[in-house]
């Protein structure tokens, strides 16, 4: 994979900045404590490195779960960012990730783990001597909560409006009578 993705590729450069080993081991440790494995049977899980990189890439590229999972199958740069160094033809292997799997992985992450991951990244950047926490700027910004419940009144109102509109159209069609015989029949 490293031969296919040039060193100047933005995703490769971006992916090379992360301390992946430390980040993934922190996630593994947290998951092992909170969700202990009951059995060793069954299919091998998708590597955490792949899932975590996909989640980050999703925000970096502004893609949806489905989009990023599709790109993982075809885009070498995305595969590189996910730590896959060899292309596997068999789709049943590690680089085949379903959006549902990504969603389950996300459900296991919690606030404490996120703080730890950010601290690991900051510590790695400080160790490299690239950033310094000596002088900080603190600010806030507004963020809209966009999750919409199924029972939302607006959604229900729109659905009812759509239904009434469609029933009105069908009724008007019915009252208009059979189509004109002069019109050309569709093939």
């Amino acid at each position, binding site marked *: 994979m490293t031969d296919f993705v040039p*060193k100047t590729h*933005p995703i490769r*450069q*971006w*992916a090379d*900045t*992360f301390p992946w080993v430390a980040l993934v081991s922190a996630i593994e440790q947290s998951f092992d404590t909170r969700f*202990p494995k*009951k059995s060793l049977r069954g299919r091998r899980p998708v590597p955490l490195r792949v899932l975590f990189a996909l*989640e*980050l*890439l*999703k*925000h*970096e590229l*502004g893609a949806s779960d489905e989009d990023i999972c599709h790109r993982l199958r075809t885009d070498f740069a995305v595969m590189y960012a996910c730590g896959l160094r060899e292309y596997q033809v068999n789709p049943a292997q590690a680089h085949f990730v379903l959006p549902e799997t990504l969603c389950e992985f*996300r459900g296991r*992450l*919690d*606030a404490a783990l*996120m*703080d730890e*991951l*950010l*601290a*690991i*990244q*900051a*510590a790695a*950047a*400080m*160790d*490299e*001597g*690239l*950033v*310094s*926490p*000596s*002088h*900080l*700027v*603190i*600010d*806030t*910004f*507004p*963020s*809209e*909560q*966009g*999750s919409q*419940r199924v*029972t939302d*009144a*607006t959604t*229900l*109102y729109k659905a009812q409006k759509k239904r009434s509109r469609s029933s009105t159209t069908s009724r008007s069609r019915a009252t208009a009578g059979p189509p004109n015989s002069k019109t050309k029949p569709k093939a």
Partner: protein
Amino acid sequence: MRGFGRRCRGQGRVFVTLVRQTAQQLLALGEPIKTLGFKAQEHLEHTVTLGEAQRQRLTLALTTAMSHHAHIRQQSTRLTHGKKLRHCKLVNAYDPTIAPILKGKSHCPAQFGRKPGIASEPATGFIFATLVPTGNPSEPSYVLPLLDKVQRAIERSQTGPQRQIHSVAGDLGLNDAVVRQALHARGILTVGIPKTVEPIKTNPSAQDVFDILTEAGLHRKRTPYQVHLACASGYSRPVVESHIASVLARGAGHVRYKGLEGAVLQQGMIVLAHNGAVMVRIRQQQWSKRAQKFRRLLGLKLPKVNEINSPKN
């Protein structure tokens, strides 16, 4: 139907009757859940085949689900009975962690949602910590939790000299006597937090530096050079806006995951992705003039560039 705010600012309509009808249907549908939940709990206690750890996990999950259901049911009953909710206290009946952002334009619909806070480096925009609180508390309450997170990151750092936070900058919203006192007790300068609308002096005189150190009580802890740096890195709106714009460009302005936990997760992931992009910029030495000067003053080293120039022809 009720409308909030001026029409010219957008329509904030709530279909009260429709909400009540829907809530009534859902309440009727979910009536047996409580009884079934209790029965499930009883069965769980008497099951012999489960291990202790698994039983505890399932009991915890069931209790959480039951408490969530009880909360939603309580709010739905309030809606059905037409009981008024407290003004400016609750935005979403089913998610009490959302609250209106209190400061807004007069006679306009209040902004509501989350108000994440960030602690970033002014030179490059690297974000050291992020905080998504429950509701929308006052801005000074963000400062100490954010600094605690930065301190934890500093403690994780293994190489180089022991790092310290020298100064904190912010807007007029952070101007709070208690916060200033707490920061001074930690040995942190607060020159960057303005007290009035007047801009902060970027080049303070020797007398100004002496006054700043005396006011903070940090004569032995902070040097005049550090005060000069703190003044230079003092709050600048365009700098902070550029950091926020970068985060917003990655979708931080719209929380797509559910609840407070979802918001925390999304903001965290966005900040990690943003920091990756910042690191790329640092390694490629793509800095503004201000950032170049600031890095030089801080003594931050240049990243090693081991690239061999490829032949042009």
